[in-house]
């Protein structure tokens, strides 16, 4: 997967990216961009104000004052630049991704058919002229012009432009593999595709806007956090502005000593107090979350979906592929009394020879391994008529001259036997129940209306999945296994895999109903799906992950698409969603906790001339008032670039109970946030004294 991921998101050339981000961060110093972030806008206004004061100090020839004002101003501008840089860096990753996607969205010529058949006359039009409902023909070497559904033909398609997966996939008219994506390339054969997307609204377009526009759309929690930050900024604005009359009063009416606090110091205090750290990093954190998702080869159609992933507390997981290895394997033959096991095996094998499914193949393999001689004697099925599996009959088999062999689900076989006037041996039901209650699937094998016995197909639960579910449980996430199996089988596998609940004999309506039930209780549900009949349930779920191989309807209904078509991806997505929120919360806590130390640096420095006794508040023993204020401003600025890697990578996250996560993050970012600036400011002060 790593190799693929590397393809989908080009390996980031950090030096190039950083260089571009540096230029971009200077460009972002314009008013319009700064207005978008209220916290940083206050810094912006402060920087201009102090710049004006610096010019004034120069003009009135106060070199000592001008040096102080100038140096403070430089660090205020650097604070802004660092903030811009973090955002640009995160955006840069997105831009690189968008550029590679855009290459796939080349303008293509399409053959628009007049009638829906391969040999219909067609006209050449541009891809942009195509409307939903149009039919186009794509042949070997053609780029599929837009999203659509194959209605005729079978073709192998290279979807690497979207998924990064270089192995071609098969797309064919009708069925669950009919969805084709604009920008992918047909390698061989042909398809007639019915266009389903408006121009500019294709999957590829959505991906590009998602990646590029990541910074522009705010998610609900981001909005709430934004409000909190604005309120804090407003309060601190009043705290610093009112400090001027307070200081003026103290100098002239109370202490009759010292100087009124300067505007530069007040701006420095303001910038230190307002939550610049989180304000600067907030856009980058959001973009980085989307990028992490992309790196996992998942495209979300909205940032909201990523946040919802963190809130999910019920996971609907398809049994096949997620909990068990793809398909069931034949594990044993159980013959009814009076029938040799070898005969059962031979018949089962003959019924499966033409069956290309992994289950069929596993029966052939098992029979060959157990009874090589008998199999050789029974021979193959040349001259026979194959009866493929159909959803109606729910059985498959072969018609040999004079013999009819069938295998299928017990209830289907019972009907078939009754119709053929055959016998249903006494012990058979017991065998069926026994196999089923063990979590395996019984397949009944019949020859000419006589039931011979049962093939036991067993699901193999993936190794390590049990531990993963246990981890989810400590996080408070319930897992629900969705399977088409009967309740007995489902229960056995559910127990083995350690899921909390299961839906057996799941029909799409059953899934939908269960999601609604969970919603009524207030749960948030995530599910995966790929078929058209999953669409209603996908639309209902809070996080709906569709496989890239899924049908167009499923993709439309989902809010995330997994380009790898890997159903276990859901577990990863939950982690990414949580990590995004944790990063925001932790850095906010850190940012607010920092204020304690900054007060202790700046307040004594600002008022020690009025009340010399306030020097006792200088608990860090900073060398001078000037140095104290500078050290606080410098700390406030440099903490931003220092935290960029954390913002982009995300706070370390592991599956744990809420109270453990909370304890850990409060200690690191809350208590650590109080202590760190004391140390940092002191170190900077020592450095300033040294130079």
């Amino acid at each position: 997967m790593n190799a693929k991921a590397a393809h989908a998101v080009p390996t980031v050339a950090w030096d190039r990216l950083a260089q571009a981000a540096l230029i971009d961060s200077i460009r972002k110093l314009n008013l319009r961009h700064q207005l978008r972030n209220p916290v940083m806008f206050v810094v912006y206004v402060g920087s201009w104000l102090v710049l004006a004061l610096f010019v004034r100090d120069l003009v009135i020839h106060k070199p000592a004052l001008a040096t102080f004002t100038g140096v403070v101003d430089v660090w205020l501008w650097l604070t802004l630049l660092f903030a811009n840089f973090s955002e640009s860096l995160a955006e840069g990753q997105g831009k690189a991704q968008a550029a590679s996607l855009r290459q796939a969205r080349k303008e293509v010529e399409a053959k628009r058919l007049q009638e829906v058949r391969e040999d219909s006359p067609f006209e050449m039009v541009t891809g942009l002229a195509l409307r939903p409902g149009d039919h186009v023909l794509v042949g070997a070497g053609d780029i599929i012009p837009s999203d659509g559904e194959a209605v005729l033909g079978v073709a192998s398609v290279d979807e690497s432009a979207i998924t990064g997966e270089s192995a071609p996939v098969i797309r064919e008219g009708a069925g669950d593999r009919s969805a084709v994506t604009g920008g992918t390339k047909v390698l061989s054969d042909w398809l007639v595709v019915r266009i389903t997307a408006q121009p500019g609204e294709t999957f590829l377009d959505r991906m590009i806007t998602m990646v590029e526009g990541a910074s522009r759309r705010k998610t609900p929690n981001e909005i709430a956090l934004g409000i909190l930050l604005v309120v804090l900024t407003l309060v601190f604005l009043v705290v610093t502005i009112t400090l001027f009359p307070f200081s003026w009063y103290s100098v002239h009416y109370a202490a009759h000593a010292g100087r009124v606090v300067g505007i530069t110091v007040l701006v420095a205090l303001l910038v230190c107090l307002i939550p610049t750290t989180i304000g600067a990093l907030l856009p980058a954190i959001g973009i980085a979350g989307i990028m992490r998702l992309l790196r996992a080869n998942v495209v979300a159609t909205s940032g909201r979906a990523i946040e919802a992933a963190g809130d999910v507390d019920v996971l609907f997981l398809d049994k096949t592929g997620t909990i068990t290895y793809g398909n069931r394997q034949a594990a044993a033959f159980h013959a009814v009394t009076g029938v040799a096991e070898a005969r059962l095996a031979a018949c089962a094998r003959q019924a499966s020879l033409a069956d290309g499914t992994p289950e069929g193949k596993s029966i052939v393999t098992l029979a060959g391994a157990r009874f090589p001689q008998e199999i050789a004697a029974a021979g193959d099925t040349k001259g026979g008529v194959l009866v493929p599996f159909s959803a109606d009959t729910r059985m498959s088999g072969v018609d040999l001259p004079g013999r009819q062999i069938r295998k299928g689900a017990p209830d289907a076989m019972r009907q078939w036997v009754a119709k053929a006037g055959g016998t249903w041996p006494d012990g058979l039901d017991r065998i069926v129940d026994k196999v089923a209650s063990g979590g395996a699937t019984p397949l009944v094998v019949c020859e000419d209306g006589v039931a011979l016995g049962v093939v036991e197909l067993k699901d193999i639960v993936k190794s390590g999945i049990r531990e993963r579910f246990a981890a989810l449980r400590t996080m408070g996430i319930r897992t629900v296994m969705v399977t088409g199996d009967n309740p007995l089988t489902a229960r056995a596998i559910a127990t083995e895999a350690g899921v909390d609940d299961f839906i057996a004999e799941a029909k799409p309506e059953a899934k939908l109903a269960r999601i609604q039930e969970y919603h009524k209780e207030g749960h948030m549900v995530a599910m995966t799906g790929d078929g058209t009949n999953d669409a209603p349930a996908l639309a209902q779920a809070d996080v709906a992950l569709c496989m890239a191989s899924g049908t167009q309807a499923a993709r439309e209904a989902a809010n995330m698409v997994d380009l790898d078509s890997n159903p276990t991806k859901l577990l990863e997505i939950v982690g990414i969603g949580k990590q995004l929120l944790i990063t925001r919360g932790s850095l906010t806590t850190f940012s607010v906790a920092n204020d304690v130390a900054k007060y202790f640096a700046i307040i004594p420095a600002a008022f020690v001339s009025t009340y010399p006794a306030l020097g006792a508040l200088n608990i860090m023993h900073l060398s001078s008032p000037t140095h104290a204020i500078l050290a606080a401003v410098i700390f406030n600025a440099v903490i931003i670039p220092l935290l960029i890697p954390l913002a982009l990578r995300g706070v370390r996250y592991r599956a744990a109970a809420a109270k453990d996560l909370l304890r850990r993050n409060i200690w690191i970012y809350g208590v650590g946030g109080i202590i760190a600036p004391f140390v940092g400011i002191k170190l900077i002060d020592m450095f300033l004294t040294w130079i």
Partner: protein
Amino acid sequence: MTSPVETLIAVLMAAILFGMPLGAYMARIYGGETFWATRALRPIEHFFYRLGGIHPEDEMDWKRYAIALLFFNLIGTLFLYGLLLWQHKLPLNPEHFAAVTHALAFNTAASFVTNTNWQAYGGESTMSYLSQMLGLAVQNFLSAATGIVIVLAIIRGIVRAKSRHLGNFWVDMTRTVLYVLLPLSVILGLVLLEQGAPQTLGAYVEAHLIAPFVSGKAYVTHQTIALGPVASQEAIKQLGNNGGGFFNANSAHPFESPTAFTNYLQMVAMILIPIALVFMFGYMTKDRRQSTMILSAMLVLFVPLALASMHYDLAANPLFHGLGLSQAHTAANAGGGDMVGVEDRFGAGSSALFGSVATATSTGAANSAYDSFMPLSGLVNLFFMQLGETAFGGVGTGLATMLAFVIFAVFLGGLMIGRTPEYLGKKIESFEIKMASLSILVMPLLVLIGTAVATAFAAGRAGTFNPGAHGFSEILYAFTSPSNNNGSAFGGLSADTTFYNVATGLCMLIGRYWSYLPLLALGGSLAAKQRLPASAGTLGAHGPLFVGLVVGVILLIGALNFFPALGLGPIAEQMTHVHALAASK
């Protein structure tokens, strides 16, 4: 001589011990249960509903609830304002007091309706008995009840799911007064009466002095002793966290608090209902851990600060050391410590404790002169109010503000565990943060901007009696107290000027309604939400860790804003004392 620390423990224990059953009782009352209390008083309750044409079953959404509350308080304000302006023409005015000035009448009306009880006047020299009883005492009940119904509506918002309704304002008010405030006041009033507080409508008493003396150039032969219906008013003054004394000397006056026992009872009475409401919250949410969490957070804030205040006041004035003055903790010194402005009967330590309780609970009563506290003890008083009156806070409003801070804590905590934050199953989204912010935001703005305006203009500066940093503290206190609806006065400031009457009056009104109407809206929004089931992945809003988070949020987001101002006031004053002492040695 009782140690003030023992008094502190005794006060808290009694308040918790009585608060627990009172909380359970209140939960049953507001839940509409039928039991002995309602069986006894229901006829009276229903009589009032018939009188007012109120349908008790008709529940209100938050907007109707808020409008009813505002309307009711507006009527109360106008009535009180009129009463004060016309008191000279009305009965029960044996001392023939003149009409109150417009500015003072506005200030007093705003003060008593908002449960602030900031008094820019001296009661026994300004107010007629009618003004005291029909005006001030009535508002003592109604403003306290208003505070309680505010938090009641918010709690209903948390408890209910998918509902628009927060209860019926008129029903809640009636029940609060009838079942809670009146019975408690009757009991406490009778005890005070027994202990010696007067209760009379007779005129003031003239006492002829045994030893006449010369004061100024006047030969003083007799003294006027002010009386009045004191006991009844005193009970609700403490229970309802009003704090507006009958006399100017407030609870230092021997008629308001005749004995050490009444001094103790008054402290218990101040914290009783705030603590009972915390327990009621636990009963109503059916989550007793919430009571434990909130009470713990309150105690974590209250106890160390109260101890600090007592410590600094008992440590006495450092500048007196070496002057041959004994400030030792002996009975002969009335307990010793900083005795300036202290009533001998109570002593410095107990006065500091009373000050802490009165400022922490938004009562604002006083049994000593807060202006004469040692600077850091005065700082504790200021700081308790600047915490936003969260520990323990005014009746109702304290818990309401605490819940707003809990919502902030839940928000940060929720993000830190990677989920959309939720409190007791209710999602905290941008609307909730907006409303909680609006509520928390206004108090620091009022205090800081008010103080800034007062220090910047002559009208504000004219009020201070003391030079130096202490004068600044006096102004800061004069805005902190009304903005938090506390009402305690630092003194040392001539507050009955048009500037201070209008400015503090506005602070009281804005501080009350701007702080709590958004919280009603928040309650309305929470009520409409679905309740989410709890799991191992949800933030448990209880336990020591969460208590720490709540306390941290209150200190970092709330109180830290006042650090610079406190630095220029009491901290500068204390440091200067210490500095001067070191220099003299």
